């Protein structure tokens, strides 16, 4: 069932994207430079300024920039938007407002210092990247060169056109066929000397009731229904206990965005246990007081911390990341020994106003990571012999999996 769905989805998607992009193809802007020097200038500008929020083929903080020169109303519009996006939005521009609705409250940083030519260089780079196609696909084809012939590297645009052409031809054939049968039937009926059997064939009425009652139909419908129910149930069951996106309101409106993002306070400053203990620890108010004894003392939220200290009553935070009791997880193993970034599991905490669960925290998710992650063996004598033994028998890097990272009693005891 899944391949069926995905195939239709692909076709559907291909169909619509091509229809959307079709009219613009001819109107590609000639203004965008094509010289090598401009493109490389654009690349360095892009990487230095834009890459933190934009990618060409993927949506990051901001939209993907693929085809932007075709999508946006005009090159001038793009230039204006880069100079000051909020101004364009405020002007009531329809396209800009649609974007704002999608991405707010994230504002695009204004770049008033860019010259028009510089922006055009960036667009040149984007154009080259757009035409080169997504990097992942390229890598994939590179990796499998032996199996895939070079001819497969047709740009998706041509494929789309061919597909649309085919669809149009098929529709035309269908129309012609219907016309022919209508004409033929009319002709035969007018002839009037038909045998009863033939007449029945010609004038066969389509019986809906018959179809509904037919066994294959009932079977098919039942099967599809059962399959859908089954799939939904399975999906629901897999979602049991998965609280991805769980971001409850906390007793104090603490913002990680301000502390970790804006002020770049190290995670460890507050989560003191993360390198030495199984739990990272939620900071006790005395850590808050290191700063807030002087900063923002009037804020009602900060007052709550003072109250907690004064009444000797701990702050009852709502626990966001809940692992079941049967799973043992140790922060220090991952952060101190494995040198894993906090964000790998907790997501972009520095952008979270309210902390929420970023990852699945299911066993499958753990296992996946253990399968793919290389062991941080650098400067750790614990692993020296293991790396040696592993390298002797394998060319791949030493993964967590290779040192028993998938074994039950690593996490369950």
């Amino acid at each position, binding site marked *: 069932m899944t391949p069926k769905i995905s195939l239709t989805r692909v076709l559907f998607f291909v169909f619509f994207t091509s229809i959307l992009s079709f009219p613009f193809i001819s109107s590609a802007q000639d203004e965008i430079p094509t010289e090598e020097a401009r493109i490389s200038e654009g690349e360095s500008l892009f990487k230095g300024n834009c890459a933190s929020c934009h990618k060409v083929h993927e949506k990051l903080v901001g939209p993907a920039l693929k085809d932007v020169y075709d999508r946006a109303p005009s090159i001038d519009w793009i230039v204006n938007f880069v100079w000051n996006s909020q101004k364009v939005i405020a002007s009531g521009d329809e396209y800009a407002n649609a974007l704002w609705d999608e991405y707010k409250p994230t504002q695009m940083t204004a770049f008033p210092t860019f010259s028009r030519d510089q922006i055009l260089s960036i667009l040149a780079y984007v154009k080259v990247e757009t035409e080169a196609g997504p990097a992942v696909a390229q890598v994939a084809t590179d990796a499998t060169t032996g199996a895939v012939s070079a001819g497969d590297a047709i740009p998706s645009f041509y494929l789309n056109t061919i597909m649309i052409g085919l669809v149009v031809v098929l529709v035309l054939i269908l129309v012609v066929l219907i016309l022919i049968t209508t004409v033929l039937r009319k002709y035969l009926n007018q002839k009037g000397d038909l045998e009863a059997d033939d007449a029945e064939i010609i004038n066969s009425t389509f019986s809906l009731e018959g179809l509904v009652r037919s066994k294959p139909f009932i079977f098919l419908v039942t099967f599809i229904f059962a399959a859908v129910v089954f799939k939904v149930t399975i999906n629901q069951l897999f979602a049991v206990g998965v609280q991805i996106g769980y971001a409850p309101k906390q007793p104090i409106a603490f913002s990680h965005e301000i502390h970790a993002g804006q002020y770049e306070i190290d995670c460890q400053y507050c989560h003191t246990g993360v390198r030495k203990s199984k739990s990272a620890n939620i900071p*006790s*108010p005395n*850590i808050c007081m290191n700063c807030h004894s002087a900063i923002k003392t009037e804020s009602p939220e900060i007052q709550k911390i003072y109250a907690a200290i004064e009444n000797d009553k701990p702050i*009852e*935070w*709502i626990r966001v990341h809940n692992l079941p009791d049967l799973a043992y997880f140790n922060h220090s193993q991952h952060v101190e*020994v494995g040198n894993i970034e906090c964000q790998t599991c907790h997501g972009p905490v520095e952008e979270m106003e309210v902390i929420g669960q970023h990852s699945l925290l299911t066993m499958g998710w753990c296992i996946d990571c253990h399968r793919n992650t290389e062991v941080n063996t650098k400067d750790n004598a*614990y692993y020296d012999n293991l790396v040696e033994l592993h390298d002797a028998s394998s060319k791949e890097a030493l993964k967590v999996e290779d040192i028993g990272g998938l074994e039950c*009693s690593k996490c369950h005891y």
Partner: protein
Amino acid sequence: MSDNKKTYWKGIEQLTNDPAFVKNAENEFPEFLPISDNEEGGSSRRDFLKMMGFGVAAVSLAACEAPIRKAIPYVNKPVDIDPGVPNYYASTYVQGGDYCSIVVKTREGRPIKIEGNELSKISQGGVNAQVEASVLSLYDNERLRNPKKAGADITWEELDKEVAAKLNSIATQGGQIRIVSNTVLSPTTKRVIEDFKTKYPTTQHVVYDTAAAEGMLVANEQSFGKRMIPSYDFSKADVIVSFGADFLGTWISPVEFTKQYSKTRRLGDGKKEMSRHYQFEGNLSLTGANADYRTPVKPSEEAKSVVALYQALTGKKSSIANIDKAAADLKKAGSKSLVVSGSNDPAVQAVVNAINTMLGSYGTTIDASKPVYYKQGDEKAFGTFVADAKAGKVSAVIFYNCNPVYNTQYGADIKNALAKVALKISTSDRLDETADLVEYIAPDHHFLESWGDANPSKGVYSFVQPTITPIFKTRQVQESLLTWAGVEKVDYFEYLKGGWETTLVAQGMSWDKALHDGVIEISESGTETDTGTEEEGDWVVGPPASASIPDAISKINTNYKSSGTELSIYQKIGIGDGTQANSPWLQEMPDPITKATWDNYLTVSQAWAVENDVTFVEGKSNMAKLTVGDTSLTLPIVIQPGQEKETVGVAVGYGRTSAGKVANGRGVDVYPLISKINGMSSYSVMSGVSVEVLPEMYQVAQTQTQQTYMGRETVIQEATLGEYQKDPGAGRYHPHIATWQEESGETSPGNLSLWKGHKYKNHHWGLAIDLNTCTGCSACHVACQSENNIPVVGREEVINRRDMHWMRIDRYYSSRPEEEMSESEQGMMDSRKLELTASNPEVTFQPMMCQHCNNAPCETVCPVAATTHSTEGLNQMTYNRCIGTRYCANNCPYKVRRFNWFKYHDNSQFEDVNTYMSNDLGKMVLNPDVTVRSRGVMEKCSLCVQRIQYGKLEAKKEGRRPNDGDINVACASACPSDAIVFGDMNDKESQIYKMLKIQDTEKADYIIEKEIGEPRAYHVLEEIGVKPNVAYLTKIRNKDKA
């Protein structure tokens, strides 16, 4: 093994081949289903559940919204505490005269486990079962939460005011005040009592011991002019003779003695000599079970055999078995010998002293210049106190952490006398039998909440520091006494520290260092601190007043008269004197010898049982009515091999009426039966004992009959010392299996395998267990329970064979095979033969836990892969994956898997026994790193995988390999005889690698690239080829012939 024709048996039922036993032995589980509550309509409950099943599932699916869980940080995080990281504090376990230096593991500020303190020269890192279990008593729900007056709560201020006023008025009228306690080891507490005495000069401190050893104090005073107990060093003894002294179990300082004893029993590393141990006793004690030569003697003969040994040493032959032999060995060993006696009779101890002097033991195995203070009881003073109280001469009495109404033979007298005492105060932590009768209760802290010190032997001091903030409104006794003595603003910590400061400074030590280490040693050449324990000065042991010996012998001859059945009272390893009776861990700990739990009982010999028509059906046995003088008790009978045939035994510590719901009503109280011999209390009752066998049947919950090996006699492998010296592999059994692959036509079973084996690149964990040093003391057993959150199931479920212990100590008896019996013996009736075999069997203890087989039979049968093999050699058990088919348990050749028939935690059915998983207080003792298992899953020894993981992580954090000893499993770390050794068999520096002489082999066919080179090492059931990672070393007995 092939030349070892001994019969091994686990109990009388196996020996008699009782049909019920045979039937049960074949079943892994008793055949009845776990439907319990018949009276409450169990089946309807199940039907209800069945019907509810779907509904509940549907509702719970619909209500999948996870409950809100809170994460609550400290308000002000203590600097030393990081949630998730354990802290360790050195402290001291003191219970009356029982002493052990310990290290307490705390998590988030609460003690969860007790380990031995390696720095102590006395306990040397060892613990015993009672010490291990003492952490649980901290979280006992029966502890008093408030000071009390006449049963009602009262504030400390009110109590202090009233008590001080009353004491003052008594003191001004010249009324007598008594402080009654067990032995006080703390010098600072003694100073507090002195302060109290200064304020109230009519105060007297009366000390008694529940298992008195005053006979030794008196005898030493007579012999050497000094009232003391010398320190013993069993490790220096080549020949040990013990007359009823259970020095490995309960006598004076068992942890210390076990450490020393095990040193003399260890072989290997070129050491081919071991001590020879003779034991003369009535009951089969733990110590007797470890003896090379054991002679069952009646209590009345025990003293006479001491005399006989004395006379044998002077050349007179004795009729008592093994006495002449012992005498010859002692003479040969000379000063490297040690004779001890558990008797409380000064006359007996005087003879023992004479023997030791004659042998020259003083200076080698006995150090009289370093006395120990474990027993300070003064029976005469205590008797006077009871008499005075009865006569109404005592106006006030303070019971300092003691319970004489229960644990002395004067209980009834004291109970009556207390009515005549105006002011009665107890400092008991619970409403025990004595506290029940007093007006004021000023509950003391638990020792884990207290400050304190202890002086176990001369020059050795040990500190007690709190490891948790007091849970309840309790107060240290010392503070109470000082407050009542009128000291303002008492702070016992300052008092203690202040007292120590000058001493420590004089020794160049700091207070912090002393607390950190937990123990200090001060070379005291006369400069003893202000403790008042001892007079000044060293003294030299002179010859005992030899004139006193004939006198002592004549006293013994008049005092010990045999009279039919005699009673020998003893303390059990777990329950001891009954102070910790409310500990479910100790109640359910199978007694090392009888394997019985939850009860005390009358142990009788097989011969006695046959004579008195005691039936033994399906584990049930007759009840008996035991009458001593005018006291009668009804208790169950257990037939005990090795019991002297006219002696019956029974343990104290049971029959508590007011200890808490775990202990109350379990067994019978035999303290009132304690007799008096030669003016001293005695655990031997030699006259007026009669036993009547009753028709009622009762089943004592024994774990003994379960999990037999079905006659596979390769489980225990043993040899005599002589054989071992000739061939280190003596006694080993090497099974062979026919094969065409080898030229010889046969090979060892491990070489033939369906499996490919495992490659252990990283670690390869294993255990080595030396059956020769294991004494069976069961400290490991309780340590395992404490470490791994193992539930207690209660008496009924033990009978149903559903005990949950991950490790057990298998106790095997062995006796001569029938072929070796003399012709006349062979012609005997079966029952007579049985008596003969059971009369004095050899005993072997074998700790048995998951063997972590490399070819684990359990792994291959699990349908859901809930039990799997790790790359480090562990057999892993994953509870959350287990669906409870129990195939693994059925397929386990060692029967070490345990199935959770019930949800034992938070279950009202088990709340009376599994207390620590049923209430919030008790749950604080649970190890947060180990899952509390629920119903329907299998569990077993994990080789303390949580400790392995922790140790590995610590090493990784420091960027190194774990050193040998960094990681230790709970059983091995608790072991007072160092019989269990855990380690990484891949680590060439590890103790286990060296101990087992592991050799890497290139034999690649079977991929365990290691072979054990130690000739003594063997795997249990080697013939089935499961290749365990647990190896045992053969038992060697220092006997002339097997």
